């Protein structure tokens, strides 16, 4: 039963992820990303982490991707806009990235099978309570710093997106 559910949703996650990067229409790509995220949430439940699954659906599928769609619909991205031919630089970068990613994955798998000492996470160790203790006691500082970092990114994006005329000018007397 568990294997069947895993197989179904793992398959769905991979297929929809491929659609995300290959579909010409950005709206369809975002919709497939929603399917990917929900499938991943199901996999989290199977791993015994229902909290992370619920957060995944609530934050990513329910909010962030809605904003993606919002932007796509507001900007009215044309279907044909994607059909520009990619240059040689893009192709080389893509190849290097793919090679790096494959290398990292291979390294991880190799290490896992070599040393069987890795203790699997129990549902106890990822329960809501222990998660809260880790986030708000043990790792409070890094957690807050990530928050600040994201805030800085938002502020920077807002400043960059502002019309040039309304930006504060440094050389003003």
């Amino acid at each position: 039963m568990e294997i069947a559910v895993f197989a179904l949703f793992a398959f769905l996650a991979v297929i929809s992820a491929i659609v995300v990067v290959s579909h010409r229409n950005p709206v369809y790509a975002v919709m497939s990303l929603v399917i990917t995220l929900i499938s991943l949430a199901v996999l989290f439940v199977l791993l015994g982490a229902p909290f992370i699954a619920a957060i995944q659906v609530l934050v990513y599928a329910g909010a962030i991707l809605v904003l993606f769609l919002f932007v796509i619909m507001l900007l009215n991205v044309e279907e044909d806009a994607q059909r520009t031919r990619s240059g040689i630089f893009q192709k080389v970068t893509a190849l290097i990235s793919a090679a790096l990613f494959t290398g990292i994955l291979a390294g991880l798998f190799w290490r896992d099978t070599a040393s069987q000492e890795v203790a699997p996470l129990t549902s106890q160790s990822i329960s809501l309570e222990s998660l809260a203790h880790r986030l708000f006691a043990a790792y409070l500082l890094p957690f807050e710093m990530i928050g600040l970092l994201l805030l800085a990114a938002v502020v920077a994006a807002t400043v960059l997106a502002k019309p040039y005329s309304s930006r504060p000018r440094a050389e003003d007397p």
Partner: protein
Amino acid sequence: MFELAATAGKIGIWVVILLSVTPVMVWIERRGCALIQDRKGPNRVGPLGLFQPLADAVKLLFKEDIIPSEVDRPLYLLAPILAIVPALTTFTVIPFGPTIIIGGQTVHLLVADVDTGALLLLALSSLGVYSLVMAGYSSNNKYALIGSVRATAQMISYELALTLSVVAVLIPTGSLRLDDVVTYQQGLWLGVIPQWNIFPHALGFLVFLIAAFAETNRLPFDLSEAESELVAGYHTEYSAMKFSLFFMGEYMSMATLGALGATLFLGGWHLPGVDFTGWWVTSALLGMGILIAKTSLFLLFFVWVRWTFPRFRFDQLLRLGWKVLLPLAIVNLILISALTVAGWL
């Protein structure tokens, strides 16, 4: 085997109740608005016009189902289905009665007994916006598109306030299970006042109530289907049963949010002074009856407000969401956290 049968039974009960919410609410809405506007309302089909929803349903089922030729077909067909899926699934985490014993087996009157109940409900209901977006985008109609863009902005803005007001309730309870929230509210203050969350969480309740209107796209926040500006908003191009699926989705999510409000703030299926220890059928029926009665209060309030207030302008709506409701929800959260730490809740 017994567990499977019990779960199937519970799901069956809720599907029947949720599907009958729409016809009942349509009747209440039409008669209610007639009452408010000093008219008679539909009164020809059956006594008091009670069979009017049946006539409507027959009409919608037999109408010609038109699919405009320029629509984006897959998304166009998927949108109405997605409108009712979240509404039907979110109900699974709401408890509707005490733990009962049938022939030596204990049964929790709750379909999905999961640790993260409240979060799961919020997560599933947040997916409802996709049906609006898909409908608006796929219709290939500017009014529909404007409607769904509005819906997206609105839902994102109000979901924050809604979630924060729910979180404030969960803090003193110390659990994400709605079952525990109900247990937490049993008991009396000074022997007369029920210990419902609505009293300490008055501010949170207000935020929840206002955000619920926005989440269900009801007037005064029905900007996404504002008929005086956008024809019918995101479902302009839909007809027959596809149109009525949107309709059913709206009423069902009203019922879900009403039941969530009743569970979080009004003690859920429990009522002080009611004895739940008798025969299992009686206690189950009592629990369901009480929950349905409390949910109806919310639904009647939704109808009352719809026919009493004018529609907001879109900028007013967003300003209310970000500059009033969100700060209020945060103040409420801090207040409740402080009270909980001080040990008063």
